């Protein structure tokens, strides 16, 4: 009867069962908001007197977003159906749980579904006199940023945004200050990915696209959205060259600046390959006389069991940003 080779039960129950497994495994970090697939920090005291930070999106990106809920990062996270934005009522429930009188800041990835559902939730929350501000993260430079499209997608760089605003909130920043911070940082965060194989949504049962045994695709999104070029598999060094060239086109990396780097596994790509990619990236950055001052390598914003990697470069244009990145957190996955 089962058509997909996954450790699941009924595909339509994947998300609620996942949320249940998560909150029961990590009660020290997470609590489920009753009647929803939203989760809030179990250490409630750590939120008092502070702006709440809420994020979320479709499921399938684990450890995003619930893995980043905890002191110093997110206050609550919402898990939609797999690759489908959560509904406004769920987001609204998360906002209410995250609000402690200082307002709530929403981190939204630029996908039409996410934007609209978070928007409706915001309307609902404002009726309760909860102050809401938000940022729409659009770090994926694979997509042309144009008025005639949905615009750039929000991908792995979103995790760095969580970290920044979470640290600021924990240090007592106001809602307006957090919005200012997020807006200032956003244009400095650029991400570009390469896929080696696609993901299969449990309910769909077949991969979102197919790549031949020796094919890769540059510029894919985190829901198997198409990228900008397909070609034969290359060495890690060449993959790095391609992705770094795109980043350079966008950011014009400069040794006078400081950079943070996030190398993100898309799900099925082993850490071994991510570390080899790091080695080549650092070598190539070195030829530009650049040495990142902050780095993370691992699975942070995945696409179920897609194989591939994304590279995020974040120019630390403001010296406080590095402090925010290094600020201690208590979460499952940071």
């Amino acid at each position, binding site marked *: 009867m089962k058509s997909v080779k996954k450790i699941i039960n009924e595909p339509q129950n994947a998300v609620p069962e996942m949320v249940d497994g998560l909150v029961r495994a990590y009660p020290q970090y997470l609590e489920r908001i009753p009647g929803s697939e939203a989760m809030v920090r179990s250490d409630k005291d750590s939120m008092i007197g502070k702006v709440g930070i809420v994020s979320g999106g479709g499921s399938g990106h684990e450890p995003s977003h619930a893995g980043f809920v905890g002191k110093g990062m997110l206050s609550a996270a919402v898990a939609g*159906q797999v690759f489908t934005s959560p509904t406004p009522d769920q987001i609204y429930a998360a906002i209410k749980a995250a609000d402690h009188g200082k307002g709530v800041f929403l981190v939204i990835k630029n996908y039409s579904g996410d934007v609209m559902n978070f928007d409706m939730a915001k309307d609902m929350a404002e009726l309760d006199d909860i102050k809401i501000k938000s940022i729409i993260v659009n770090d994926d430079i694979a997509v042309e940023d144009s008025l005639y499209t*949905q615009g750039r997608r929000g991908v792995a760089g979103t995790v760095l945004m969580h970290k920044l605003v979470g640290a600021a909130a924990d240090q007592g920043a106001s809602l307006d200050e957090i919005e200012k911070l997020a807006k200032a940082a956003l244009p400095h965060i650029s991400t570009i990915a390469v896929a080696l194989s696609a993901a299969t949504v449990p309910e769909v049962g077949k991969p*979102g696209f197919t790549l031949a045994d020796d094919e890769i695709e540059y510029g894919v999104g985190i829901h198997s959205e198409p990228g900008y070029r397909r070609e034969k598999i290359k060495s890690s060094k060449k993959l790095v060259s391609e992705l770094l060239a795109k980043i350079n086109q966008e950011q014009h990396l400069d040794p006078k600046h400081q950079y943070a780097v996030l190398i993100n596994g898309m799900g099925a790509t082993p850490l071994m390959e991510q570390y080899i990619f790091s080695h080549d990236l650092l070598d190539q950055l070195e030829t530009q006389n650049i040495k990142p001052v902050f780095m993370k390598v691992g699975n942070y914003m995945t696409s179920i069991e897609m194989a591939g990697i994304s590279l995020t470069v974040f120019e630390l244009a403001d010296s406080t940003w590095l402090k925010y990145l290094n600020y201690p957190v208590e979460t499952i996955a940071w």
Partner: protein
Amino acid sequence: MLTAENTQEWMNKFYLKIEQNKDYLSELDTPIGDGDHGNNMMRGVEGVKQGLAQLQDPDLKTVLKTIAMGLISKVGGASGPLYGTAFLEMAKKSSDTQDINQLIDVALAGIKKRGGATEGDKTMIDVWSPVAQNDTITQQVIDDAIASTKDMLARKGRASYLGERSIGHLDPGAVSSGYLFTALLETEGTL
């Protein structure tokens, strides 16, 4: 003219069409989207069905609001807020009028406002808009509207990432909106 009764019948018919075409809708969503539109809509009509079943002797406004809430709270993705907003706007307007044409007008305005898309962007709007513009809704109008999305280049939603490659495929949201209006046509007394 919409009533509490015929609107519920309309939803029953819509339910059946979605149920029957769930896989087809997801297939349409595969080349230019993420393959979930059928599943999304199915959760939505299930939600609507459950919501309506709990009402006792409701008025039209309550019926429309219940439909909106069912869609908003079950669909998610891009289509959930859009369909939800459409019915929410109809619910609001139903205090003034029960005329289906006027209700569709406000629904369309809501969809446009919520999603920022317009005619020709290859979205559900390309079915809602011709239906709103024609005084009498016919199957021909619906079918032509759906078909028109095939040659369009997507400018909103997930399909927009494909650019030129979005041309040559029907828009899944347009097709599901077509089912909505066909169901309306088939519901006596609504027009």
